[in-house]
């Protein structure tokens, strides 16, 4: 049994949200640098160059990459031999978010669904927890902007729709979004599970490293086929036309009910802000 105090969780969450919003990861920068070479449209190339320059300016000036600093999506893998002391865990995460969005001069984008009144501190965060073996806590933050999140969907396909049904659903969503989710995008696809699990899988898919393929060769093949077909739509960077509409496609899957084929598509803009820490 190992004790972890919530003070440490609060300060880590605060730091991760500020870091994620200001410092684009090396992984994303490398991918954008490669995308400039891949892109065939001169306007598209220019847009990607702006994005690279944007990331450098954000880092130098210590201001956010994008003014939409997102809802505070937080994933925790909690070792079953950890004892959390101090505050209630969810309160601690919220406090970390509150401090990060205030002290990092990040935009507060969380409001009541109907009155639209801003909660004022970007809480409550969206928290996903998993209990895992060990005596550590892994925290991953994924501040997620509204523009790209608006083009996600869960759809209950029927088993006979199969792979082709999944492909046409994903392409439909990418085309529907067009320029609005700020391409070049990353596409997370959750296949199987049930209604809510497919959505969580699609979000987890967005957290896979760039270029890493699904361990199942059939799923890996589907990822590459989807990437190719998305990049043939012509949407391109910012929707101005081009050959790099998506930077990657990731699939996460699990078994589902004999009567169902749940599929979720979650779209991530090029400002893919993900940072993690292990306590």
């Amino acid at each position: 049994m190992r004790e972890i105090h919530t003070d440490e969780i609060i300060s880590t969450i605060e730091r991760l949200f500020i870091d994620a919003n200001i410092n684009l990861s090396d992984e994303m920068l490398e991918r954008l640098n490669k995308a400039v070479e891949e892109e065939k449209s001169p306007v598209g190339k220019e847009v990607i160059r702006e994005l690279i320059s944007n990331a450098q300016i954000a880092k130098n000036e210590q201001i956010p990459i994008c003014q939409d600093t997102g809802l505070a999506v937080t994933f925790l893998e909690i070792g079953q031999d950890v004892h959390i002391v101090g505050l209630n865990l969810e309160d601690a995460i919220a406090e970390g978010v509150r401090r990060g969005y205030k002290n990092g001069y990040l935009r507060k984008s969380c409001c009541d669904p109907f009155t639209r009144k801003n909660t004022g501190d970007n809480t409550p965060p969206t928290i996903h927890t998993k209990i895992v073996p060990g005596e550590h806590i892994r925290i991953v933050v994924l501040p997620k902007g509204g523009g790209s999140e608006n083009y996600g969907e869960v759809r209950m396909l029927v088993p006979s729709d199969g792979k082709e049904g999944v492909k046409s659903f994903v392409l439909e969503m990418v085309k529907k979004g067009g320029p609005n989710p700020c391409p070049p995008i990353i596409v997370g696809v959750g296949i199987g599970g049930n209604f809510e699990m497919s959505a969580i899988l699609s979000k987890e898919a967005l957290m896979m490293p760039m270029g890493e393929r699904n361990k199942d060769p059939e799923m890996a093949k589907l990822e590459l086929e989807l990437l190719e077909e998305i990049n043939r739509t012509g949407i391109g960077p910012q929707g101005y036309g081009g050959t790099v509409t998506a930077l990657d496609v990731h699939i996460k899957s699990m078994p589902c009910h004999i009567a169902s084929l749940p599929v979720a598509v979650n779209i991530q803009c090029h400002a893919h802000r993900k940072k993690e820490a292990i306590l």
Partner: protein
Amino acid sequence: MEIKVITTPLDDEVIKGLRAGDKVFLTGFIYTARDAAHKRFIETLEKNEPLPIDIKGQIIYYCGPSPAPPGKVIGACGPTTSSRMDAYSPKLLSLGLKGMIGKGKRSQAVKEAISKYNAVYFGATGGAGALLSKSVISSEIVAYEDLGPEAIVKLGVDKMPLFVINDIYGNDLYEMGIAQYKF
């Protein structure tokens, strides 16, 4: 690529020279306004009252910046999705608004009003909020301060990087781009 340098207020001759797909550097003054400010503009006009700013010849930027850190003019200030303003834009264009800056497609009614009233719709690169903040040299709240991040802010900009999306000739960069690169 070639860059056209233009300044505000936009006159009709400059607008005639702009084509969808052009990259421009914009210098001068622009006004931020997004959902809530647009709603209030239209309510004001319906009451036959004057708008808090003179929009003739001016440009509106659909933007809700992140807070300015100490010592900075503004925080990250990229565009928001323009289509939410589609319902209001034709009226503002009819009153002399000359330009709009945002991201994403516009409605047919907005595109027609752009041609009819000699205006232009520019795209600022979504998610390039830090880059765009570098071109902002002054920032002053001029109306609707109570709307917080949605207040109307007069921004002084120097070489703000934009692309022309909809021009007066009916061209649309989104449609042109897909037609050219779809395969």
